[in-house]
């Protein structure tokens, strides 16, 4: 390792970087804004995906039996459910227990002591192995003899998926916009840097420096813009997460957000990667366009 060469190269990059400090700060700020949006978007999406996934996983099918269902019918149904490979759990809830559950669930809201007789039918509570099986299985169960009605979270699944899609579209559009803005600003910074150093560049080319060598300091500056921008974005995200997120959770107490599903090291890595790619890519394109060879 020739440290003299490394030192010289890093010195050139540092000089180029500080010479154009205001422009570099603008570039870093834009990258930071872009990545802040991207980070928030990824964070919210992962959390929401987990939320809807959790809801889907917990969807139960309630199979209500006809009032006249005999113990034989119940036993036959139970056996057929157990035999179905798509069904993971089967639980029989006699009408008496159903009423007990209803009372527990509505305590203080509805006075169930007014009920003189049990209006509930017997039912099976069934879970299937994966959420997308729910509609099909529910449809089949409805046709079985002795079954009166089948209920599951119809509509919930669809609504969750639609929300997810809308959020995704808005997020992608905004991120695309910011990536374009960041690219333009970094390109422009690079263009100014090329202009400011045209003397050095012409001498480098004159004494036989390779194109790659001439370009490298500018590419490195772009990379630094991108990485520093990512660092700023990550710091801002941490601050936002520490201050705003608890308030959001407070405001939505009924929603079970599980933020533990966000893999923070991976998110940080993703933001650094995207920042680096934007910075390097924009600088590469710009230096290629503005460098006469």
């Amino acid at each position: 390792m020739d440290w003299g060469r490394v030192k010289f190269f890093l010195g050139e990059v540092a000089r180029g970087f500080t010479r154009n400090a205001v422009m570099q700060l603008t570039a870093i700020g834009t990258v930071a804004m872009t990545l802040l949006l991207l980070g928030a978007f990824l964070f919210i999406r992962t959390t929401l995906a987990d939320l809807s996934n959790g809801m889907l996983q917990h969807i139960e099918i309630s199979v209500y039996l006809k009032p006249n269902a005999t113990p034989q019918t119940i036993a036959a149904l139970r056996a057929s459910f157990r035999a179905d490979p798509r069904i993971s759990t089967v639980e029989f809830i006699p009408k008496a227990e159903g009423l007990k559950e209803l009372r527990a669930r509505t305590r203080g809201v509805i006075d169930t002591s007014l009920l003189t007789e049990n209006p509930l039918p017997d039912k099976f509570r069934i879970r299937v192995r994966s959420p997308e099986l729910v509609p099909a299985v529910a449809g089949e169960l409805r046709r079985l003899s002795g079954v009166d009605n089948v209920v599951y979270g119809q509509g919930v699944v669809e609504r969750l998926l639609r929300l997810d899609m809308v959020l995704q579209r808005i997020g992608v559009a905004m991120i695309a916009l910011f990536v374009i803005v960041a690219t333009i600003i970094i390109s422009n910074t690079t263009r100014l840097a090329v202009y400011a150093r045209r003397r050095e560049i012409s001498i480098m080319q004159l004494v036989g420096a390779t194109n790659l060598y001439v370009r490298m300091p500018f590419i490195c500056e772009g990379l630094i813009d991108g990485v520093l921008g990512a660092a700023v974005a990550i710091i801002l995200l941490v601050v936002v997460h520490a201050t705003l997120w608890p308030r959001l959770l407070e405001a939505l107490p009924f929603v079970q957000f599980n933020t533990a599903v966000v893999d923070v090291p991976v998110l940080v890595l993703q933001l650094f990667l995207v920042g680096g790619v934007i910075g390097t890519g924009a600088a590469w394109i710009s230096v290629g366009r503005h460098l006469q060879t």
Partner: protein
Amino acid sequence: MISLRSVSLLYPNGVRALDHVTLEIAKGEFVFLVGHSGTGKSSVLRLLYREMRPSSGEITVDGIRVDRLPGRRVPALRRHLGVVFQDFKLLPDKTVWENVAFAMQVTGAPTKEILRQVPRALDLVGLSHRSRMYPDELSGGEQQRTAIARALVNNPKILLCDEPTGNLDPANTTEIVDLLLRINLKGTTVLVATHNQAVVDRMRRRVVRLENGKVVTDKERGYYYLGLGQGQVLSG
């Protein structure tokens, strides 16, 4: 060492900068390229270091067909050449030492080699004692000597000089020309484009004269002007 065969250069605006120029320069020669401004002297040099490509004709520099050289091979060509300009082209925020070292650093030379070659080049141009100074602390002659040291530090076989004394007073001019002569005596082929009559007439070297993009005379031990008798020319 340098060969131009029927080289023409047409600018996009239709101006014919060079018109079927043919020129052979042997290894170790010292050649003046003379003529008025705009007669194509600089164009010849720029074709040699492949700043431009000719519209037609063949150019060979140290065995390399420059007119056909693809862009990615240009750096390799330029490492065989040293180029010196009228305006020195020094970096103002680097010292003399750094300016000279820069030429080696950006071509990826190892530090050990830089530490050996830079003092040698500075010694050759007589600037060892100025190595820590910045260009604006130097006289014009010293700045040009720095530029020459930078051109020579990679040990080129050919030194191309475009009006090297154009910005200098007579004393500094003499100093630079003597330096170029010494460099030539060490075996480097030197091609100097100039319109400084005094220099050309004092040195009595090969003189190639361009007019309107054409070679009009090519004389060993020539004078700046054609047709002047030796007696009519004052030397110095």
